[in-house]
């Protein structure tokens, strides 16, 4: 396939998604309000040091925001009857998937960068490695945006069903990834479980970048996030292709 046509398709799909889906209630509720309430529920009145909690909080915001757009797009398009028209354009399923991932990643990047900038301005934050922080921010948004698109792969025309599935996948990940309970305080079984979660590696690399104590070497974090991104994209492509005709 001509690469310029592919990139054009990805960019137009992302633009379309940004115009239509960023202000949809499920994106705002599951992407913005949930992490905020989780933060408040955990932080308020417990005397927790915000500096210590900030890397995990940033990872949680990035995780929720990046993965909130993807699950909505495909079922919404199938329900409103626009999916068939979208497929009739000079695009492939992979073009559409990458456009959806890009829209989710930009949403996550914008919100988590805003949180990062706001916290940096108001709190005295010591960065150990800004470049690593930016790389992991970028990698994390793509990884979890790809997870969001994968969650949208089941053949459903009902956005609420997919959003429910999305909550079923995302909430357990938040609790096993060292956000509320540091990895060092988890039991052995908990630690092994945590290593299966891609979010663990983002929390870990944020801890390192923002002056905390990491649990695994940074190259492992980067490799794990990259590998999960590739796996999510591959599996999303497989299932979206498999379920294509069921949703038309």
């Amino acid at each position, binding site marked *: *396939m*001509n690469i310029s*046509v592919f990139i*054009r*398709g990805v960019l*137009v799909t992302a*633009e*379309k998604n940004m*115009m*239509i889906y960023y202000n949809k209630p499920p994106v705002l509720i599951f992407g913005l309000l949930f992490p905020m309430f989780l933060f408040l529920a955990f932080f308020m009145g417990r005397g927790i040091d915000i500096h210590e909690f900030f890397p995990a909080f940033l990872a949680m915001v990035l995780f929720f925001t990046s993965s909130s757009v993807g699950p909505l797009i495909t079922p919404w398009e199938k329900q*409103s*009857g*626009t999916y*068939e*028209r979208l*497929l*009739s*354009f*000079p*695009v*492939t399923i992979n073009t559409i998937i990458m456009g959806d991932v890009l829209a989710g990643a930009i949403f996550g990047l914008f919100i988590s960068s805003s949180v990062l900038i706001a916290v940096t301005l108001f709190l005295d934050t010591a960065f150990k490695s800004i470049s690593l922080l930016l790389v992991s921010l970028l990698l994390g948004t793509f990884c979890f945006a790809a997870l969001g698109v994968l969650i949208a792969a089941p053949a459903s025309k009902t956005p609420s069903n997919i959003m429910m599935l999305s909550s079923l996948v995302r909430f357990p990940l938040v609790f096993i990834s060292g956000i509320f309970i540091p990895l060092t305080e988890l039991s052995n079984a908990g630690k092994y479980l945590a290593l299966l979660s891609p979010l663990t590696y983002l929390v870990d690399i944020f801890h390192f970048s923002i002056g905390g104590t990491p649990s695994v070497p940074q190259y492992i974090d980067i490799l794990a996030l990259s590998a999960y991104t590739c796996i999510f994209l591959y599996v999303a492509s497989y299932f979206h292709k498999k379920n*294509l*005709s069921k949703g*038309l």
Partner: protein
Amino acid sequence: MAVIEASNLTKRYGDAVAIDDLTLSVGRGEVFGFLGPNGAGKTTAVRILTGLLKPDSGTVLIGGMDIAKDPIKAKMKVGMLPETGNVYVDLTPKQNLSLTGKYYGLSKDTIRKRSDELLSELGLYERSNDLVKTFSKGMKQRVSIACAIIHEPSILFLDEPTSGLDVQSRRLIIQIIADMNERGCTIFLTTHDIEEANKLCNRVCMINKGKIVAMDTPENLRYTFEDTRSLEVAFDKEISRDLFNSKFISRMDRQGNKWRFYTIDIDSTIRYIVTMVENKGIKINSMTTYGPSLEEVFVRLTGVIEK
């Protein structure tokens, strides 16, 4: 020269055969009608022809290109109005057209110029900045067809383009189809509306249970069966179907306060009916004869109505 060539297409969903060894060819500049009853496999066939679905076997060439091997290049030549081809209701017509134009790689200037032309032609210019969600069904369909032709495709697939529309929208869309064809665009028209196919199409293909049952010009198809001529009669009293039992009448249908008699011999049928009603003291209020109809051929070939 053929611009759409389908060879031996077959598509199954589990045990059900949606498309059964379908082969057809559509020439450049032709308006090709694709007719069939509900569930005949029309939409599946169109989805395969436009590269949305992969057939289990068979090939599709669009402008000489295999759509399975090079879907992007083939799709660039095609405009499509899918059966459920809604536009984005959260956007304005201009935004919908702009996004569509960008998918086809049109420049900003071309998109602006074409959008203005199309929205004017389709009577939507004044509403071009309103959200589509505030539009009627007919207006939405007009935006949809504008999206299908913004890039001036050489082949246009239309799946039920006028289904359920008001007269004004229907006429505008038919006019657009005729104009596109006049400019050399090949039209592949899927429809339930036999009269529409009769008026617009150079050739018609009838499909039933995934198989082609007839393919010819509307004029030739009309004469597929000898007894497709008919006689429409209104009586002054209610009559019973049992009253008429003649070898000349192949079928009779009630149509409102009239009866329609299908026959191979109009003259003998008229004489027979007149004799029968005279005997019963029934008057004939009106009587009209009709030539062979495409609708009747369609009904016979697709088995929608049993005799």
